[in-house]
């Protein structure tokens, strides 16, 4: 775990907390789904927390994010309040999208969080566009565009990579390669599985990083975001990771072996960081308990908030289909 990011105690505590917030939040979501408080499609990020935490850490407030349906990690890392995220999952009016989007469609104007997109690959052209807009408006912003290994199979990946590179747009493409798109192993979906290398076909610089190591992700993202911001060229970051749970709540996981899962569990990004912090004496057990307690309290509060939330009045069903102005 070496890099140019400052590895002080406060920062590492912060990274750990950020990952734990996601992990514990989603553990609760899983229960809430089984209790039918949350419905629809829900995709958990369990195991992949280091990716969004590490990348989002390197962004500034003026930067933008485009995510996928597996978006809780990015949303929490970006600072979207847990209350309004939970309320969204509950379908409540107090949710970040008034309960209209649900788990797959988290949006937040304040943090330039442009969704939660449920079409695989559908966010990539959007990210090209936000970066183009930022560039034309002479903002010094970067768009971080998250997508899965499955999105690499889609034509939109190819078109977006080419456009961004051709026009020298400030996009950091972040591939969360968790080895599967639903049940499709990456080697059964792609003739060349070396995703990090695919930038070459577009003259786009890139790196491959251990997505189970939050510090490594942060370091790599730090380098690439700096490159994007300074040289105004897009970069590709492949994060090798793994989801510990099923693809969604409807998945018998017939397509992968328990042993594979167990191997990856050994590399759990949270346990790994905790262990290292323990070994180096940077964070003691009590401190971790304190973090866990804080996180638990935050989640309890979020659930209480969501429970107490209201349902949007069906009279407002058609509202915002057509906008009467561009929100500021």
């Amino acid at each position, binding site marked *: 775990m070496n890099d140019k990011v400052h590895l002080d105690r406060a920062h590492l505590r912060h990274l750990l907390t950020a990952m734990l917030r996601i992990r514990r939040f989603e553990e609760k979501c899983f229960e809430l789904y089984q209790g039918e408080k949350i*419905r*629809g*499609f829900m995709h958990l990020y369990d195991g992949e927390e280091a990716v969004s935490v590490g990348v989002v850490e390197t962004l500034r407030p003026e930067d933008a994010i485009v995510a996928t349906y597996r978006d809780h990690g990015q949303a929490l890392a970006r600072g979207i309040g847990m209350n309004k995220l939970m309320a969204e999952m509950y*379908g*409540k009016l107090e949710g970040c999208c*008034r*309960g*209209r*989007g*649900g788990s*797959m*469609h988290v949006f937040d104007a304040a943090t330039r969080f442009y969704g939660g*997109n*449920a*079409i*695989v*690959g*559908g966010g990539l052209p959007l990210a090209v566009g936000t970066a183009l807009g930022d560039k034309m408006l002479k903002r010094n912003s970067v768009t971080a565009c998250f997508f899965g290994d*499955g*999105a690499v*199979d*889609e*034509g939109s990946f190819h078109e977006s990579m080419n456009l961004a590179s051709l026009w020298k747009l400030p996009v950091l493409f972040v591939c969360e390669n968790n080895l599967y*798109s*639903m*049940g*499709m192993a990456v080697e*059964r*979906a*792609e003739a060349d599985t070396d995703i990090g290398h695919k930038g070459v076909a577009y003259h786009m610089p890139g790196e491959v990083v251990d997505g189970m190591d939050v510090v490594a992700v942060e370091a790599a993202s730090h380098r690439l975001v700096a490159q994007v911001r300074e040289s105004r060229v897009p970069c590709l970051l492949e994060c090798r990771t793994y989801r510990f749970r099923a693809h969604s709540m*409807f*998945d*018998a996981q*017939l*397509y992968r072996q328990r042993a594979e899962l167990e191997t990856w569990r050994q590399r759990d990004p949270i346990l790994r960081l905790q262990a290292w912090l323990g070994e180096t004496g940077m964070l003691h057990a009590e401190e971790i308990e304190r973090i866990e307690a804080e996180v638990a309290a935050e989640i309890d509060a979020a659930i209480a908030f969501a429970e107490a939330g209201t*349902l*949007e009045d*069906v009279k407002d*069903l*058609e509202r915002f*289909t057509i906008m009467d102005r561009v929100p500021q």
Partner: protein
Amino acid sequence: MSQSAGGPQPRRITYREACKQGIRSAILADPRVFLMGEDVARYGGCYAVTKGLSEELGEDRIRDTPLSEAGYVGAGIGAAIAGMRPIVEIMTVNFSLLAADQIVNNAASISHMSGGQFAVPVVIRMATGAGRQLAAQHSHSLEGWYAHIPGLKVLAPATHEDARFMLQPALDDPNPVLIFEHVMLYNREDVLDQAVTGVDITSAKVMRPGSDVTLITYGGSLFKTLEAAETLHAEGIEAEVIDLRVLRPLDTPALLTSVARTHRAVIVDEGWRSGSLSAEIAARLAEAAFFDLDAPIRRICSAEVPIPYAAQMEQAALPQPAAIVAAARGLVPSR
């Protein structure tokens, strides 16, 4: 042999199982038939329709594809032209937009523009519809959109019988056939009448006879409409319910025959109202049943909004039995 005579009770199966049986027999019956799509093999199908089939039939005949909708739909079209009889599964109609060019510009056009040199005997199956709180990008009902395209046939199996048997005539058809399966039907249970061994893909079907008003519908809305008819019956209104079954070409004579008797029509369609299939049906009645109609045509469709996630909002956006009942009641003079 009388149906009640001893023998084992016919087993209740899901619509999903009926679809699977249709696929399985079609593949077993013809070496040219295979199915391809995302997660159809190892995962077992996103709605579990093909679960277990790849183990039995092999991964060549139940073929997992990468997430490349334009690519593998186009490949299905090409394979059909080359002599195979592919069944292409697109997980849902929402993703079919990525393959719309291949469907419209290739599948639907090649026969005509080649002067009849080639046929395109491909079947494209996909799930459609809302009701599972999947929100705006996963809840479209675009079958009416595709029913606009010359060169395609479009089917909407609502019943178990159609889910089980429409696939074979679709494969036998030399033209590209799109099959839309409503997501809310997969878990429905029903029995398959053992005496039925096939269905046509040409005609609409009267699902409940009635004389006061014709309720025209298809797919996932059929059962809501039948429920509405039951309520109307309790009120003394006899509604005739027609399941379109085939969305292109429409069986217009069946509709005209019914309306000539009932003089009133309500169309129920989960598509967004403006420009949905219901509009075409209303237009045909306004053209050809004008002198038969005693009352304006009514349409019960989805509200014109991207379908929201929250349950109460989603349900408010979709056609509901109560609205069908109210529309029918409004047309029939009180007695």
